[in-house]
Structures are given as C-alpha cells and as structure tokens.
C-alpha cells in the first residue's frame, strides 16, 4: 500500500500541477472578458491602440525614418506588454486567491506562474497580427523564426522570476503595486522599445546593457525583421540571469509563503 503511494506520487503530483496551472489560466482567460462585448478581442485592442498613437507621434510628428518602424515598435510593445502586465498583475496573485492559499498542500508558487502564463497566452494571440504586420511591410519571414520559441522561453523565465518577487513582496508591503506601476512606466521609455539601442550615446550604453529586456526585444527583432539568428551569447546570458533570479526569488517566495495565511 505504502509503496504504491510512493511509486505513483511523483507522476501524479506533476500531473496535478499541470492541471492546476491549466485550470487556473483558463479560469483567468474566461473571467477577464466575461460579459464584455469585444471579449478576447480586447487583447489586441490595447497594443494596436498604442501602436497607432506611437506611429503617429514618431513617424508623423517626429519624422522618424527607421525602416519598417511599425512592425519594429509593435514587437517592442507586445513583448514589453507581456512582461509589464505579468509582473504588475502578479502583485495580486496571492491576495486575490486567499481561498486557494488556505487549501492544504496548495503550491502557492504556482499562482505567479498562472499570471505569467495568462499573459503569455495574450502575447501569443497577438503574434498573428505581428506576423501580418511584418508581411504587409514586405519583410520576408526567414528560417530564423525557429528561434522564436526559445526567445519566448527565456522571456518566460525572466518574467516569472520578477513575478515571484512582486507577488511575495506585495503581501507584506502593499506599496509594491504602485511603485511597480511607476517604475514600469519609466522603464518602458528607458528600454529600447520605441527606438534602437544604436541611437543611444556611447556614455549611456553601459546602462542599457544592464537591461535584460533590451536583449530580448533585440532578439525578437533579429528574428522577425532582420531575419537573422539572434545574438545567442546575449540571449544565453539573459537566460542564465533569469534562472539564477528564479531560484533566488523562489527561495524568498517560499520563505515568505509560510506566513501568507496569516497576513490577510
């Protein structure tokens, strides 16, 4: 009897984690646009509206001449959009799920995963539009596109690490949400989303090289616009940073999680 339990314990628990993640992501997706007229289309409205305004401001008003500027900034907007929404919403991942946290054996660290996963789904839904924009601009899609899943994976790990941190810090320190809101808004302009790192003056370049999102956005652009292999060394460094942070913030999260049930 006991040995049977032991033999089946691991696969079953893995299966359960997968099902939990799936059920909760699906629940989030269903709830988000429940009873709204546009429904899932809202996923596209937000980045497209941003694209429209930024294109107008920079192409018409500032006369930016960067070729393929529209798909160029759309990559930045959607990639950053995934990161920003996931990290920001993770602050509520624990507080919005009190009943689950109080459930015996519930893996609390799964909740930030649910947020990042939900936002990943949104990101994936904008990909067809992105490909459409690329094709309309007359850019051929090359074999380099096979790197796309890998870039997405690296971004997932990086985003999840920040989300874990945001989720557990916010439980005790409710300013996190607002601080993050301000921080992410400023970071949006300091990350090469609406421009290219190449226009950054030499003396600020080093600062830009500290921003992991800059490498990720550049990797997407390499693959989709320049049609070449992304800078693999840079991507690997971001991946390693992501994994190390993930480990670190997970340990922090686990320490904090023992008191979650008492904090609200």
């Amino acid at each position, binding site marked *: *009897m*006991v040995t049977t*339990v032991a033999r089946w314990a691991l696969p*079953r628990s893995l*299966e*359960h984690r997968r*099902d*939990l993640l*799936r*059920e*909760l992501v699906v*629940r989030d997706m*269903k*709830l988000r646009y*429940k*009873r709204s007229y546009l429904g899932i289309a809202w996923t596209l409205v937000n980045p497209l509206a941003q694209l429209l305004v930024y294109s107008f401001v920079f192409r018409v008003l500032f006369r930016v001449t960067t070729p393929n500027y529209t798909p160029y900034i759309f990559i930045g907007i959607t990639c950053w959009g995934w990161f920003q929404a996931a990290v920001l919403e993770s602050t509520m991942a624990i507080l919005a799920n*009190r*009943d*689950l946290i*109080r*459930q*015996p*054996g*519930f893996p609390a660290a799964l909740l930030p995963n649910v947020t990042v996963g939900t936002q990943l789904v949104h990101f994936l839904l904008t990909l067809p539009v992105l490909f459409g924009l690329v094709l309309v601009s007359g850019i051929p899609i090359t074999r380099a596109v096979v790197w796309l899943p890998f870039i997405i994976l690296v971004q997932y790990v990086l985003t999840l690490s920040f989300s874990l941190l945001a989720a557990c810090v916010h439980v005790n*320190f*409710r*300013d996190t949400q607002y*601080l993050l809101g301000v921080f992410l808004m400023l970071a949006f302009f300091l990350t090469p989303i609406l421009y290219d790192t190449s226009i950054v003056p030499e003396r600020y370049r080093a600062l830009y090289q500290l921003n992991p999102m800059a490498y990720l956005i550049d990797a997407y652009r390499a693959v989709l616009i320049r049609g070449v292999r992304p800078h693999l060394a840079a991507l690997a460094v971001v991946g390693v940073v992501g994994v190390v942070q993930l480990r670190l913030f997970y340990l922090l999260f686990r320490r904090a999680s*023992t*008191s979650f*049930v*008492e*904090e*609200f």
Partner: protein
Amino acid sequence: MAGTIVVEGVSKRFRHWEPNRAMTLQELVLRGFRWRRRDYFWALADVSFQVTPGRMVGIMGFNGAGKSTLLRLVAGVGRPTTGRVKLHGRVGAILELGVGFNPELTGRENIFISGVCSGLTRREVSERFDSIVAFSELAEFLDYPLRTYSTGMHVRLAFAVASHIEPEVLLIDEVLAVGDLAFQKKCWDRMLSFKRNGCTGLLVSHAPQAVLALCDDAIWLDHGRVVAYGPAEQVVGQYVEATGTLPKPPVGESVGSGDGRSDESGARSPEVRAVVPGAGGGRS
C-alpha cells in the same frame, strides 16, 4: 503508515491584529518608521496528541478555543510556532467550502476548478463528474453561472465536490450542516462511508450529536490547551456539562447551526475570525 496523525507539543502564536498597522509607505513615514508593535497571543499552547489510522476524532471547544487553528496546522496551512505535526497519507480537507469557486463561471466549470484546486487531477474530476453532479442534485443547472444559484444550491455543489476527494486523512471544519434535511442526511451518510472505508479524521464541531455519531474519540480544547482527550462519550459528556455550568451562550449547539452561516462568503466558521486576527482585518 498512511492515516496517522501525530501532533507533538504544538503551540501557535499570533500577532494581535493592529488596526492601524502600517501597510503602505505613506503610513510608515507618517508614523516615523515604527514598523509594527509587537503584540502576541497564543492560540494554541503545547498541544500533543496522536490519532491512529482509521479513527475519527472530534475537536470541541468554545469559540476561540483554537479548534480551527489546530485543524489548519494539521492540514499544513501555516506553521506551528513550536512543536511539530506529522501526517501520513493523502489529505482531504474541508476547511472551507467552494474552494476556487467563481460566481461568473458555470456550475460545470466550477466543479472542475474546485476539484483540481482541492487536490484532484483533471482526469480524476472527469471520472467523478457524474457522481458529483448526482450528489449535488443540480444536473439541470450545470450550465448556468454560479451567481444565479441560491445559497443552498451553491453550498450543495461545494459539498458535492469536497466530498469526492476520497482522502486517507479527512479534516473537516464544521461544514456538515448544509442544505435541507434530506441533503444533510446525504452528507452524513457520506461521512459515515468515509469512516467505514478506514479514513482517519479530525472533525471540528460544536454539535455534541455530530461528534458522538461520527467520532471514536474527542478532544476538548479550551484557550489553546487540551482539557480532555479520550473516548467520545466521555469527553462530550464533560464538555456538555461544562457548557451548562459556564455563563456562556450556547453557540451552534444543534446540527442545523451551520445554516445561517452558509450565507457568509466561503462558509468559514465564526471562530476563525476570532482566533486569527488577520482574518477579520483583511476584509475591512
């Protein structure tokens, strides 16, 4: 072996909920960085007992005695301040009803979410789905959103899911009294069948009848301490006698006492709010 519960010298200290505790930076600055006042109380003090496999143990006590805190620690929700809890076997805990329920989703969707959140895999929920629906008697409302359900229907669905976890160790926090009399009888039969199947259990209840009918042994907790632990009839007898002599209003003395409570969100027992300072404050 599976189904053993060992509680060794468990104490639990809670911080008193301070209504003015700084939760934001602004408040913190305004109070000159006094982070929080240290103010504690002990919800449980040096509680030890063992439950051998297949035995059901009732936990009784007045409001605020630490019953729900004890049950939660046994379930592994939160950690004891001192001492330790050892538990073997798959835990099925009914500490709250309707875990993961969402009013906007349909009954069907909620069964899956709640089932998976309670520890079943999706496949296991699928296998039990028909049985859950039959138990809830809500077949014709399955595709309506949960918000259209009456309180009674809501609780029936929640209990139907909770009672299909098929645990080796069952932890129940006074949620037996749900629905009308016929449904209560069903819940009751379900509990008895768990017991017949050799399930170990801890049952928090105010109702002496419930403890007598379902439990072999009983623990009487008072102010976080074990007053008595022994055969159910004996401990229940002492408890009822003490209730009669103490100037305390008899809270939830009948099996039907849960009815009024089920309107509250999550059907959490009232004593949880008294014991866990944070629980009440979080709602404000």
